[in-house]
């Protein structure tokens, strides 16, 4: 095995393949930094270029690109509060407040280093998991997937700071907004107000940019100030790396969560990142109080799971030929074009095992290269947080609006962006938490779809499936654990007075 792994690595270092890898990583970094563009768009742009290339070259190019979009997305997420990809949204919650404190460099360093570790962990797990993944994937049918979405929704409770009622209401509002457009299961459209644009629902990039980015931009412009409230940058990127090493078990836990959640087709990367964030908030010391105010661990958690999820998505793709995400669907198509038949043969030393190892090494190398590139830029980039809003924000606004308009190229894109910008700004001013709104939105469709299918298929029997009961137990423990902890905190606070 070691011998095969070494030879796969040497294949990847052959000039033809390595150039492709570097090219892929470069494109991936650029795509990641553009709000609204993600791995799926990157894959479809690159697809025509793989024709006539060897499978190794194609893998290096496509996966090199796909593996790193989440890395560079941290730049915009932390520095200006604009999500570069869907996976970088949780990073904003603590990364942006850090930039406001002048600690952009530290946050960036931690983000890049933890996403690299997550990516490498994912690649190793991919190779280790492929032989044993089949029963796991087959055990998680629709009812279990529904319970996973419920677990995701329970994260709302963990993420709320301040009034639990307001947080819950925001989550419910997110669920309602996520229900706009075509209903799953029945050919019915909801909340479209006879406006055709809404038949497709609200696009996630527009929603996220409106809720998170526009309010910050407005406040920066109105306040005549830069992102960083302190004039000097404190906390270097090296400090960020030290933070990651200090929190190595958190990185490990979140990488495991990211890989396992995305291994199941139907639970996407964004959901896994929020789960990681919520899990971290609940389990790290003092997390319930400091998360959301610029806690470095709130950056490390979602970043560790973001790049790990790329590897998780590959498991069902390579094992069953069932892609776990949009970009994997295109990657699978590319493999077919090149004559690679996925399935159990991906583990056969006489067939495609070497390709599987090339895939794993591509993920590892792409993550290392991307982190090196981002890290060397981060010193310079973090100075952006010192530039005054009036100078920087017009450029950011142009990028945000262009990215929004590119979503479907209809007027509706811009109208919705402004609408959600206003809603986000009001929420920010009122101190209502915005992450629950987003979690509700992201999970609305999946939760409804899985509930409908589970009850249509199984009646009420699905409630008694062992997998469902197991996840329900975790859910109940999580909820009661957080209530118990909150009460203890209140008692202590009362005693201290």
């Amino acid at each position, binding site marked *: 095995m070691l011998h095969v792994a070494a030879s796969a690595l040497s294949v990847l270092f052959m000039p033809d393949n390595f150039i492709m890898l570097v090219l892929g990583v470069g494109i991936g970094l650029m795509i990641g930094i553009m709000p609204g563009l993600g791995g799926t768009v990157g894959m479809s742009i690159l*697809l025509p270029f793989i024709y006539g290339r060897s499978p190794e070259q194609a893998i290096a190019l496509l996966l090199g690109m796909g593996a790193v979009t989440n890395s560079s997305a941290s730049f915009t997420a932390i520095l200006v509060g604009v999500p570069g990809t869907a996976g970088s949204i949780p990073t904003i919650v603590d990364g942006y407040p850090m930039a406001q404190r002048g600690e952009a460099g530290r946050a960036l360093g931690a983000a890049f280093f933890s996403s690299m570790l997550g990516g490498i962990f994912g690649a190793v797990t991919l190779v280790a998991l492929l032989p044993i993944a089949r029963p796991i994937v087959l055990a998680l049918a629709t009812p279990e997937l529904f319970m996973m979405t419920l677990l995701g929704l329970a994260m709302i409770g963990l993420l709320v700071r301040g009034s639990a009622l307001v947080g819950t209401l925001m989550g419910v509002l997110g669920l309602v907004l996520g229900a706009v457009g075509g209903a799953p299961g*029945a*050919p019915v459209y909801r909340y479209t107000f006879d406006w*055709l644009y809404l*038949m497709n629902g609200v696009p996630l990039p527009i929603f996220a940019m409106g809720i998170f980015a526009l309010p910050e931009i407005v406040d920066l412009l109105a306040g005549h100030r830069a992102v960083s409230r302190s004039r000097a940058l404190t906390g270097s990127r090296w400090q960020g790396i030290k933070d990651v090493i200090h929190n190595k078990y958190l990185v490990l836990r979140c990488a495991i969560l990211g890989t396992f959640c995305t291994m199941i087709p139907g639970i996407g990367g964004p959901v896994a990142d929020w789960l990681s964030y919520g899990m971290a908030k609940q389990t790290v010391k003092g997390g319930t109080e400091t998360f959301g105010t610029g806690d470095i661990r709130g950056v490390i958690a979602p970043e560790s799971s973001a790049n790990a999820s790329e590897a998780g998505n590959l498991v069902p793709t390579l094992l*069953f030929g069932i892609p776990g995400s949009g970009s994997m*669907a295109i990657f699978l*198509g*590319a493999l077919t074009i090149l004559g690679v038949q996925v399935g159990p043969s991906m583990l056969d030393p006489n067939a495609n095992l070497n390709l599987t190892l090339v895939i794993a090494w591509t993920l590892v190398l792409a993550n290392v290269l991307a982190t090196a590139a981002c890290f060397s830029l981060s010193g310079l980039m973090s100075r952006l947080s010192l530039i005054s809003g009036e100078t920087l924000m017009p450029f950011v606004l142009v990028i945000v609006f262009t990215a929004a308009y590119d979503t*479907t190229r209809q007027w509706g894109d811009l109208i919705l962006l402004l609408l959600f910008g206003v809603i986000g700004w009001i929420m920010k001013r009122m101190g209502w938490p915005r992450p629950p709104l987003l979690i509700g939105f992201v999970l609305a469709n999946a939760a409804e779809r899985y509930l409908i299918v589970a009850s249509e298929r199984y009646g009420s029997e699905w409630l008694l499936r062992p997998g469902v009961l197991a996840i329900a137990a975790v859910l109940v423990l999580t909820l009661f654990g957080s209530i118990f902890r909150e009460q203890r905190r209140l008692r202590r606070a009362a005693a201290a007075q």
Partner: protein
Amino acid sequence: MISGERILTRRSLLRGVAAGAVGVSSLGAFKVGPALSATPFYAGKQIRFDCPSKNGGGSDLAARFLAPWVSKEVDGNPTVQVFNAKNTIIGGNTFAARPADGLAIFISSASTQLPWLLGQQGVNYDFKTWHPVAGFPLGGVVYTSGKSKVKSIADLAKNPGLVYGGESAVSGDTTAILALKMLDVGVKFVMGYDGQNAERTALMQGELDIHYDSSNTYLDELKPQVANGDILPLFSFGFLGEGNKLVRDPLLPDLPTVAEAYKTIHGKDPSGPDWDAYQGLMPLRFILNKAIWMRNDCPDEAKAAMDAGFAKMVADAEFQKARTDQFGPYEVFLGKQLDDAVAAVNNISPQTIAYLKDWLSRDFQATF
């Protein structure tokens, strides 16, 4: 959700897109070529190729495959750019609102035509006002999981309560669920799955027993699973032969059609409203599975140039080779043959449409 953009196989389409891109770069035909003789209508013009599906969806990939060929074969070598509406009804409406200058063409799929035929809310387009240019046919296969108790068509009737899973009742699934309803073997329909991949996973898990795929996907991707017993093909949707009669799918000559399956189960030829509705949908579902359209009121020379371009394309051996990968080795429908198929769709009886609407809204909560 009304999409059902899975009538063509994703992977064979991807392959076609990549092949098309290479073909074009070697031909250099994507940009405006030198204009010959008396300036053709499309010389130096740019065509908008409107497509109703999302990025990477069936119609999108088909349009991207065809775009360079349109540019190469249509007299005047126009530039062709694909525009993506990401939703089937929005896509149809977008095209309907384009000016009648002959510079816009449209690719439809069964999931664009069905909402129009049934008069679903939001549809502002009318295929009767459009001129058909070409039809790319495709059939389908209904199969069962190797895990289910069904080993033959006759077993279907002995095992009521088998579960069929699909995305939406008004989509590519409509034909399959209508066929199973007609067989009257007590199949239970569960709608709401998130597309083909989710359904195939569910089939492996044993959550579903019955599923359908296009004939092309079946031949391309599922044959290995048939060989090792994971999948058992039951019957094909059939195909439209001479005089609009249902015949065996030319891609699957060994597989019985749904009509033969009916006879095996019930001992007589199919008849009744389900069979009438099934036959009514056949031209739409098979011949016009993917079809190219222009507005009827655009200049005659534009329509003539486009028709001639597609005729030339179909005669091009290189295109035939590339599109066989893409759409399967079915014959491309043009001219009179195509007009007949379109007329058949336009002449579906109001009773049949009312019957379909009644069934879909009663059994699947569809609103019209």
